[in-house]
Protein backbone atom coordinates (compact mmCIF):
# COMPACT_ATOMS: atom_id res chain seq x y z
CA UNK A 1 0.00 0.00 0.00
CA UNK A 2 2.76 2.39 0.94
CA UNK A 3 4.58 1.76 -2.33
CA UNK A 4 1.40 2.77 -4.19
CA UNK A 5 1.31 6.17 -2.50
CA UNK A 6 -0.88 5.54 0.53
CA UNK A 7 0.05 6.53 4.06
CA UNK A 8 -0.37 3.53 6.34
CA UNK A 9 -0.73 3.47 10.12
CA UNK A 10 0.26 0.23 11.79
CA UNK A 11 -0.35 -1.38 15.16
CA UNK A 12 0.64 -4.73 16.60
CA UNK A 13 -0.43 -6.51 19.77
CA UNK A 14 3.24 -6.94 20.70
CA UNK A 15 4.09 -3.25 20.61
CA UNK A 16 7.88 -3.77 20.39
CA UNK A 17 7.33 -5.19 16.88
CA UNK A 18 5.95 -1.81 15.81
CA UNK A 19 9.23 -0.15 16.77
CA UNK A 20 11.23 -2.89 15.07
CA UNK A 21 9.22 -2.37 11.89
CA UNK A 22 9.39 1.44 11.97
CA UNK A 23 13.15 1.38 12.54
CA UNK A 24 13.69 -1.36 9.96
CA UNK A 25 11.76 -2.00 6.76
CA UNK A 26 9.46 1.03 7.22
CA UNK A 27 12.22 3.56 7.86
CA UNK A 28 11.82 6.69 5.74
CA UNK A 29 8.46 5.59 4.38
CA UNK A 30 4.97 6.98 4.83
CA UNK A 31 4.18 4.58 7.64
CA UNK A 32 2.97 5.70 11.07
CA UNK A 33 3.79 3.40 13.98
CA UNK A 34 1.21 3.41 16.78
CA UNK A 35 1.62 2.09 20.31
CA UNK A 36 -2.03 2.00 21.40
CA UNK A 37 -5.42 1.49 19.80
CA UNK A 38 -6.38 5.06 20.72
CA UNK A 39 -3.30 6.47 18.97
CA UNK A 40 -3.90 4.14 16.02
CA UNK A 41 -7.53 5.20 15.48
CA UNK A 42 -6.66 8.89 15.92
CA UNK A 43 -4.01 8.62 13.20
CA UNK A 44 -6.55 7.63 10.51
CA UNK A 45 -8.43 9.78 8.03
CA UNK A 46 -12.22 9.48 8.21
CA UNK A 47 -14.08 7.40 7.24
CA UNK A 48 -11.56 5.10 8.85
CA UNK A 49 -10.43 1.89 7.22
CA UNK A 50 -8.77 -0.67 9.47
CA UNK A 51 -7.35 -3.82 7.95
CA UNK A 52 -6.74 -6.84 10.17
CA UNK A 53 -3.86 -9.04 9.08
CA UNK A 54 -4.08 -11.51 11.94
CA UNK A 55 -4.53 -15.24 12.24
CA UNK A 56 -8.00 -16.44 11.21
CA UNK A 57 -10.28 -17.42 14.09
CA UNK A 58 -10.68 -15.95 17.55
CA UNK A 59 -7.99 -13.30 17.00
CA UNK A 60 -10.18 -11.61 14.38
CA UNK A 61 -13.15 -11.47 16.77
CA UNK A 62 -10.91 -10.18 19.56
CA UNK A 63 -9.57 -7.33 17.43
CA UNK A 64 -13.07 -6.45 16.19
CA UNK A 65 -14.14 -6.08 19.83
CA UNK A 66 -11.02 -4.05 20.54
CA UNK A 67 -11.48 -1.48 17.77
CA UNK A 68 -15.29 -1.24 17.53
CA UNK A 69 -15.74 1.12 20.53
CA UNK A 70 -13.32 3.58 18.95
CA UNK A 71 -15.01 3.75 15.54
CA UNK A 72 -17.74 6.00 14.18
CA UNK A 73 -20.57 5.25 11.75
CA UNK A 74 -19.26 4.69 8.24
CA UNK A 75 -15.89 3.37 9.41
CA UNK A 76 -14.87 0.00 7.98
CA UNK A 77 -13.13 -3.00 9.46
CA UNK A 78 -11.43 -5.19 6.84
CA UNK A 79 -10.39 -8.75 7.57
CA UNK A 80 -7.48 -9.58 5.27
CA UNK A 81 -6.87 -13.00 6.78
CA UNK A 82 -7.92 -16.45 5.71
CA UNK A 83 -11.27 -16.55 7.54
CA UNK A 84 -13.90 -19.16 6.77
CA UNK A 85 -16.78 -17.53 4.88
CA UNK A 86 -19.55 -18.27 7.47
CA UNK A 87 -17.45 -16.34 9.98
CA UNK A 88 -17.26 -13.42 7.54
CA UNK A 89 -21.05 -13.45 7.09
CA UNK A 90 -21.54 -13.54 10.88
CA UNK A 91 -19.04 -10.73 11.49
CA UNK A 92 -20.53 -8.55 8.74
CA UNK A 93 -23.97 -8.80 10.38
CA UNK A 94 -22.50 -8.14 13.82
CA UNK A 95 -20.44 -5.09 12.83
CA UNK A 96 -23.32 -3.65 10.78
CA UNK A 97 -25.58 -4.06 13.83
CA UNK A 98 -23.17 -1.71 15.61
CA UNK A 99 -23.51 0.88 12.83
CA UNK A 100 -20.14 0.21 11.22
CA UNK A 101 -19.11 -1.54 8.01
CA UNK A 102 -17.24 -4.78 7.50
CA UNK A 103 -15.37 -6.42 4.65
CA UNK A 104 -13.79 -9.85 4.61
CA UNK A 105 -11.32 -10.09 1.81
CA UNK A 106 -9.12 -12.85 0.64
CA UNK A 107 -5.65 -11.59 -0.16
CA UNK A 108 -3.83 -14.05 -2.35
CA UNK A 109 -0.38 -14.00 -3.84
CA UNK A 110 1.83 -14.64 -0.85
CA UNK A 111 4.66 -12.39 0.20
CA UNK A 112 5.55 -11.38 -3.35
CA UNK A 113 1.92 -10.56 -4.03
CA UNK A 114 1.95 -8.36 -0.96
CA UNK A 115 4.70 -6.30 -2.54
CA UNK A 116 3.91 -6.52 -6.25
CA UNK A 117 0.10 -6.71 -6.28
CA UNK A 118 -2.08 -9.33 -4.63
CA UNK A 119 -5.30 -10.82 -5.89
CA UNK A 120 -8.08 -9.34 -3.75
CA UNK A 121 -11.68 -10.57 -3.45
CA UNK A 122 -13.66 -8.40 -1.04
CA UNK A 123 -17.11 -9.29 0.28
CA UNK A 124 -19.24 -7.79 3.01
CA UNK A 125 -20.98 -4.43 3.44
CA UNK A 126 -21.67 -2.92 0.00
CA UNK A 127 -21.64 0.58 1.52
CA UNK A 128 -17.97 0.10 2.38
CA UNK A 129 -16.93 -0.24 -1.24
CA UNK A 130 -16.67 3.47 -2.20
CA UNK A 131 -14.16 4.15 0.57
CA UNK A 132 -11.97 1.08 0.03
CA UNK A 133 -12.22 0.99 -3.76
CA UNK A 134 -9.42 3.52 -4.48
CA UNK A 135 -6.99 1.60 -2.27
CA UNK A 136 -7.93 -1.95 -3.31
CA UNK A 137 -7.98 -1.17 -7.00
CA UNK A 138 -4.62 0.57 -6.86
CA UNK A 139 -2.77 -2.14 -4.93
CA UNK A 140 -4.37 -5.20 -6.53
CA UNK A 141 -3.33 -7.39 -9.38
CA UNK A 142 -5.44 -5.96 -12.18
CA UNK A 143 -7.46 -8.70 -13.88
CA UNK A 144 -10.02 -9.43 -11.16
CA UNK A 145 -10.68 -5.97 -9.81
CA UNK A 146 -13.30 -4.87 -12.32
CA UNK A 147 -16.24 -5.74 -10.09
CA UNK A 148 -17.41 -4.04 -6.89
CA UNK A 149 -17.60 -5.65 -3.47
CA UNK A 150 -19.92 -8.65 -3.29
CA UNK A 151 -22.69 -8.87 -0.72
CA UNK A 152 -22.18 -11.50 1.97
CA UNK A 153 -18.92 -13.34 1.76
CA UNK A 154 -16.69 -13.64 -1.25
CA UNK A 155 -14.84 -16.62 0.16
CA UNK A 156 -17.01 -18.92 -1.95
CA UNK A 157 -15.19 -17.46 -4.93
CA UNK A 158 -11.89 -18.93 -3.78
CA UNK A 159 -11.14 -20.89 -6.98
CA UNK A 160 -11.65 -17.75 -9.05
CA UNK A 161 -9.45 -15.78 -6.72
CA UNK A 162 -6.72 -18.38 -6.83
CA UNK A 163 -6.87 -18.34 -10.61
CA UNK A 164 -6.24 -14.63 -10.47
CA UNK A 165 -3.24 -15.14 -8.24
CA UNK A 166 -1.80 -17.75 -10.55
CA UNK A 167 -2.28 -15.51 -13.54
CA UNK A 168 -0.50 -12.73 -11.69
CA UNK A 169 2.46 -14.98 -10.86
CA UNK A 170 2.76 -16.08 -14.48
CA UNK A 171 2.88 -12.45 -15.58
Amino acid at each position, binding site marked *: *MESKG*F*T*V*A*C*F*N*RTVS*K*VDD*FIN*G*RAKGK*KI*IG*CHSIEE*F*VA*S*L*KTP*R*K*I*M*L*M*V*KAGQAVDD*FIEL*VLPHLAGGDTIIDGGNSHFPDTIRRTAYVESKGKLYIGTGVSGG*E*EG*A*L*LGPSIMPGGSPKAWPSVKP*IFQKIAARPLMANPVATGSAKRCRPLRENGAQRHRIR
Partner: protein
Amino acid sequence: MAKADIGLIGLAVMAKLDFKYGKQGLHRRLLQSHGFKG
Protein backbone atom coordinates in the same frame (compact mmCIF):
# COMPACT_ATOMS: atom_id res chain seq x y z
CA MET B 1 2.89 13.59 9.46
CA ALA B 2 -0.47 13.65 7.68
CA LYS B 3 -3.18 11.23 8.77
CA ALA B 4 -3.09 7.74 7.32
CA ASP B 5 -5.27 6.51 4.46
CA ILE B 6 -5.63 3.08 6.05
CA GLY B 7 -4.64 1.34 9.26
CA LEU B 8 -3.06 -2.08 9.44
CA ILE B 9 -3.24 -4.31 12.51
CA GLY B 10 -0.80 -7.23 12.57
CA LEU B 11 2.79 -7.12 11.41
CA ALA B 12 3.42 -10.85 11.21
CA VAL B 13 3.44 -10.70 7.40
CA MET B 14 6.39 -8.31 7.59
CA ALA B 15 8.30 -10.71 9.82
CA LYS B 16 7.50 -13.46 7.32
CA LEU B 17 8.93 -11.35 4.51
CA ASP B 18 12.15 -10.77 6.43
CA PHE B 19 12.36 -14.44 7.31
CA LYS B 20 11.78 -15.65 3.77
CA TYR B 21 13.92 -13.19 1.85
CA GLY B 22 15.96 -11.03 4.19
CA LYS B 23 16.49 -7.42 3.18
CA GLN B 24 19.19 -8.20 0.59
CA GLY B 25 17.54 -11.41 -0.53
CA LEU B 26 14.29 -9.62 -1.23
CA HIS B 27 15.99 -7.23 -3.62
CA ARG B 28 17.77 -10.12 -5.32
CA ARG B 29 14.53 -12.06 -5.76
CA LEU B 30 12.74 -9.02 -7.17
CA LEU B 31 15.57 -8.37 -9.65
CA GLN B 32 15.58 -12.02 -10.68
CA SER B 33 11.82 -11.99 -11.15
CA HIS B 34 12.30 -9.15 -13.62
CA GLY B 35 14.92 -11.02 -15.64
CA PHE B 36 18.15 -9.85 -14.06
CA LYS B 37 20.78 -12.40 -13.04
CA GLY B 38 22.96 -12.22 -9.99
